[in-house]
């Protein structure tokens, strides 16, 4: 706890914590003090100079000056005011105030608001253009140098928050400007389109293109009329108060038209929240704010710009019924009547076992909960699963077996606080972009250590202190060998193990086999690297291990997940901040859909189906008997279809036909269903097999909650009305129940959440009221609303409160016959989501990344004579795809990489993957695929456009480097003290 000091502010005594920034304190006290470049997240950038105060007779910045005993601070003395006005005057030399016809005039323009607060009436330095062209090259945002005030907020976020390291300000030019890389156009630069620069720009210099000419009442005025109008304003020279008054009237009017709705992103498990600004059905922009508990001002390209799909012409807008070789539009009544008829007949004839239900990791908790309720109550079937079966079930299994909760041990804050982060088989800069930014930032600014284990040398691997490249599917071995080595060195946390973990002696026995030498042999990693990894864990103040599908999508992903937990238990890395196990949940609601009991052996609230008490509670609430026999997984459902045991399926929000492995086989199986209902936003490949297709509303069109990878529950609000006859999923499921004769009568998802809370101890204290606006809760949540961001501080989730070492052994990867000589790795790329059904509707995203390709290593390209753009055929025992090559050292030797974002029969990855799955959870071993490569055409055009950021080189530096501004000959200091601030 810092010392309290006494300071005088404008003559009044205050007691404040020593070291508090003056500006932070003023704002906290509700004092309106001018400032443009500063924010709590970005820290003192010190470029705008508008926050000057008179402090002990000196002019100093409120943003960078910290409170000291006896300070005398005057915030608006004549001297301070003069300094502030001078600063604003310099800003207005760079920025023309045509607010009323500016698209950024939305009440939150920092330049406008600060000039108004400072009561600026005229400027002494006339505005002048900088002599640079507006950069319109990028599909999603533009830069207007003539409006840029050179505050460097964009540079700060790009360098030190997003840490993509593209932007800088060239302070040495005659008139400085923001630069992309070393002077490239935005489109050709290393910019990954995260949009954070546009988000934090305090004026209209950087703007989302979707706002231009759309946001204002009069901003659509064509340029040949707008220019003379702006000239008129200049000629007439009204004082700025008049301009501000006018622009405020305009801003107030447009506020009536622009709707701002808080939502939660639907493109990955990080759980970014932000406002979506809409005008009618048009999305004007995504506006993240510092209120977002996970992401603050950060987003990735998908969250910021990827929403075109909502208004796509391909949206389903009416129920469809299969008649002959076509779908015929139907009314809801017709569709629901048909579903109820067919399903109840099948239920009566064969029982609930003949029906299967598949929920989605993309729909809300409430949608998922109702899907399992429909299965268990209305159809008396435990055959309910969700698409986390394809990704994260093994991670959950490994954690349930060792520490007791199937979720991340802490929050992203814990990850940033760790001394060491180890990423195994995950590519967070592309799969979980905003989470990755926090690791990159911790590394760049605070010296966090990073180890990456992966087949592919992706961005995190490039940035790592140690990059491990084990043989495919062998992570279990090196992880376990390191645990053994650590114990041998006496680096383990003996007290922790003794007090808090069971099965230690059995675990020691298991370890015997996993020597460093054995690990070297199996994984191909060097002894030095293995020992170095162990040493880094030993020396780190807290280790977090993050993993993804590189671990889980193997024949024993659940064992490897448990081995990760074992290693963390050995080193005491649970129950403290900056430590723990973090399976990175892939979709927005992977965590939630599992928490809601859309699993064959789990009830809502992570209560086991085998738990008699829990089952009795649900039996009472639902008024039916619930079998204690687990139902079928997705994979088993398809097997049961093949056997003729499963007759009908109701599937929501999942393109199983492309997402399950071995697509050819899945397509075949789906066509054998007697009755198939698919509920989705688009007519997906899966929906094409359906008898009835129900049009669902995407996240922007409904209320509900998502649970992110941190176990954080957040509310989304309806921003748009459902398109056409599409409906929120919970509404549709409720209708099916109703047509089956069961009346639930929910009027709003909040009532569903109340029911979930009443039946699940870990959600006991969850309510929509507590989740209002930006508020969130991290489960388990007690009745009084106390949540638990960091798990296991007192006890592990077992009856005796102790963790258990998992005793599962290593299972080697699947063997292929020798002709399949290349390892086929597969996964995501930043720009697209999942198989691509949503993001491939975005023009800008398609422009940046139009098609999938196969990455080939330089070695292999030489050996096989392929080059960028060559057309090749990849053949596995299960199928064939055809696509173009990219030669890159991201992949190594005989390893290939194919992104999964394809819904084409020509090149969808799962045409190649096989049917073998994880030994415990059946999650397909997508990553254990081998192929042979046949060259079709050597010459061809590259599938990755040259303006994709992957070709460009980053330009790292720390922040905006204001010292270079101060060093300019023409710079006249305003402050008496110009000192750069370290470690914001």
């Amino acid at each position, binding site marked *: 706890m810092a010392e309290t000091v006494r300071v005088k502010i404008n003559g009044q005594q205050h007691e404040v914590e020593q070291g508090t920034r003056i500006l932070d304190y003023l704002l906290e006290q509700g004092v309106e003090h001018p400032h443009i470049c500063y924010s709590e997240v970005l820290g003192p950038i010190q470029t705008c100079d508008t926050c000057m105060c008179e402090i002990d007779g000196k002019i100093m910045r409120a943003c960078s000056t910290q409170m000291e005993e006896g300070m005398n601070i005057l915030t608006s003395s004549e001297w301070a005011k003069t300094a502030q006005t001078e600063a604003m005057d310099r800003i207005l030399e760079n920025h023309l105030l045509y607010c009323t016809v500016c698209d950024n005039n939305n009440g939150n323009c920092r330049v406008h608001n600060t000039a108004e607060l400072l009561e600026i009436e005229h400027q002494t330095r006339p505005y002048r253009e900088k002599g640079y062209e507006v950069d319109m090259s990028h599909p999603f945002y533009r830069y207007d140098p003539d409006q840029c005030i050179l505050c460097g907020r964009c540079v700060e976020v790009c360098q030190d928050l997003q840490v993509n390291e593209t932007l800088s300000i060239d302070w040495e030019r005659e008139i400085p400007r923001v630069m992309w890389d070393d002077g490239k156009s935005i489109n050709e630069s290393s910019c990954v389109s995260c949009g954070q620069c546009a988000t934090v720009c305090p004026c209209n210099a950087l703007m989302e293109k979707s706002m231009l000419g759309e946001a204002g009442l009069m901003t659509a*005025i*064509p340029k*040949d*009329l707008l220019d*003379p*109008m702006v*000239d*008129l304003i200049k*000629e*007439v*020279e*009204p*004082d700025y108060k*008049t301009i501000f008054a006018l622009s405020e009237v305009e801003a107030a009017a447009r506020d009536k038209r622009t709707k701002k709705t808080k939502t939660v992103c639907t493109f990955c498990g990080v759980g970014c929240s932000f406002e979506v600004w809409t005008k009618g059905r048009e999305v004007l922009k995504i506006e993240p704010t510092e209120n977002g508990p996970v992401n603050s001002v950060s987003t990735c390209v998908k969250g910021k710009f990827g929403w075109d799909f909502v208004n796509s012409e391909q949206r389903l807008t*009416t129920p*469809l019924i*299969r*008649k002959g*070789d*076509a*779908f*015929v*539009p139907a009314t809801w009544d017709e569709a629901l009547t048909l579903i109820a008829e067919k399903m109840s007949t099948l239920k009566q004839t064969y029982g609930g076992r003949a029906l299967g239900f598949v929920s989605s990791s993309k729909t809300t908790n409430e949608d998922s909960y109702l899907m399992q309720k429909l299965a268990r109550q209305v159809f008396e079937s435990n055959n309910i699963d969700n698409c986390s079966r394809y990704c994260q079930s093994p991670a959950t299994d490994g954690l349930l077996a060792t520490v007791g909760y199937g979720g991340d041990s802490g929050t992203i804050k814990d990850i940033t606080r760790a001394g060491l982060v180890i990423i195994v088989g995950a590519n967070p800069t592309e799969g979980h972009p905003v989470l990755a930014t926090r690791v990159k930032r911790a590394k760049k600014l605070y010296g966090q250590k990073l180890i990456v284990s992966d087949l592919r040398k992706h961005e995190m691997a490039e940035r790592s202190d140690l990059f491990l490249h084990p043989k495919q599917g062998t992570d279990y071995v090196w992880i376990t060998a390191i645990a053994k080595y650590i114990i041998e060195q006496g680096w383990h946390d003996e007290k922790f193990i003794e007090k808090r973990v069971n099965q230690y002696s059995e675990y020691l026995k298991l370890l015997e086999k996993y020597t460093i030498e054995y690990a070297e042999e199996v994984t191909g990693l060097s002894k030095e690297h293995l020992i170095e990894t162990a040493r880094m864990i030993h020396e780190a103040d807290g280790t977090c291990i993050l993993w993804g599908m590189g671990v889980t999508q193997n024949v024993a992903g659940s064992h490897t997940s448990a081995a990760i937990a074992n290693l963390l238990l050995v080193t005491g890395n649970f129950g403290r901040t900056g430590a723990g196990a973090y399976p990175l949940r892939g979709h927005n609601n992977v965590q939630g859909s599992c928490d809601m009991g859309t699993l064959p052996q789990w009830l809502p609230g992570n209560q086991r189906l085998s738990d008699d008490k829990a089952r009795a509670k649900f039996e009472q609430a639902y008024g039916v008997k619930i079998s204690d026999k687990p139902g079928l997984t997705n994979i088993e459902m398809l097997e049961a279809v093949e056997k003729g045991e499963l007759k009908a399926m109701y599937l929501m929000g999942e393109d199983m*036909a492309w997402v399950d492995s071995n697509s050819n086989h899945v*397509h075949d199986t*789906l*066509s*054998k*269903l007697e009755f*198939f209902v698919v509920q989705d936003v688009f*007519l997906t*490949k899966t929906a*094409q*097999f*359906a*008898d009835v297709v129900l049009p669902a509303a995407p996240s922007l069109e409904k209320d509900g909650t998502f649970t992110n990878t941190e176990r954080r529950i957040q509310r989304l609000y309806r921003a748009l009305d459902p398109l056409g006859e599409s409906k929120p999923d919970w509404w549709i499921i409720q209708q099916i129940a109703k047509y089956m004769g069961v009346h639930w009568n929910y009027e709003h998802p909040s009532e569903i959440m109340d029911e979930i809370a009443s039946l699940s101890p870990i959600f006991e204290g969850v309510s929509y009221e507590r989740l209002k606006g930006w508020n969130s809760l991290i489960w388990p949540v007690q009745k009084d609303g106390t949540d638990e961001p960091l798990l296991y501080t007192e006890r592990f989730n077992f009856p005796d409160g102790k963790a258990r070492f998992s005793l599962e052994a290593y299972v080697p990867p699947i063997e292929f016959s020798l002709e399949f000589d290349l390892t086929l790795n597969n996964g995501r790329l930043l720009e697209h989501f999942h198989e691509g059904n949503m993001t491939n509707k975005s023009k800008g995203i398609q422009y940046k990344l139009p098609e999938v390709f196969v990455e080939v290593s330089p070695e292999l390209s030489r050996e096989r004579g392929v080059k960028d753009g060559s057309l090749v055929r990849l053949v596995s025992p299960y199928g064939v795809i055809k696509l173009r090559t990219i030669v890159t050292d991201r992949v190594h030797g005989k390893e290939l990489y194919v992104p999964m974002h394809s819904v084409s029969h020509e090149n969808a990855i799962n045409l190649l993957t096989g049917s073998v799955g994880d030994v415990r959870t059946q999650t397909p071993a997508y990553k254990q695929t081998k192929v042979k490569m046949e060259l079709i055409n050597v010459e061809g055009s590259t599938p990755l456009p040259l303006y994709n950021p992957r070709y460009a080189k980053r330009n790292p530096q720390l922040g905006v480097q204001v010292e270079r501004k101060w060093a300019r000959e023409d710079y006249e200091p305003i402050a008496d003290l110009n000192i750069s601030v370290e470690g914001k």
Partner: protein
Amino acid sequence: MAKPITKIEEPVFTEKEQQNQALEKVLQDLTQNTEGIKETIKFLQELHESGILGAINNLVEAKEDLAKIAVEQMLRPPVTNALNNAMAAAGALTEIDPEMIKRIMNGMAKGIQKSEEELRLNKKIGVFDLVKLMRDTDINRALTFSLYLLQGVGEGLKDPSQENN
């Protein structure tokens, strides 16, 4: 065997149905606002008969061209001067206490009334009358106001560049 299909049959009469739906919504709005609608129709008819509606329509159709002309006109120096004058005048007016204006206006009204009455008497005023009148408190107040007003105007007219002379 359910083959995958992508063909969606276009529903028959969709357009007609959509039209009917839209019409129904409009009818609903109409019946809920009958009085206002009737008045509006009458008003529009009046405008139409007098030819105003047509003129407005044409003007709206040409709105961008007109705006361009208007702005161009406004950019001419006499107009920008006028705008500057208007704004300066408006600015000056805002500095005057409204209470004072009220009093002056009252005084003016009374004065006009009084002088009219006096004029009607067709009386001649001699030098003595003038001196006598100056002692009258009402007249004295008006004179004081006028003299100081002149002084203020004089100050306002001073050339700032010669301020120190």
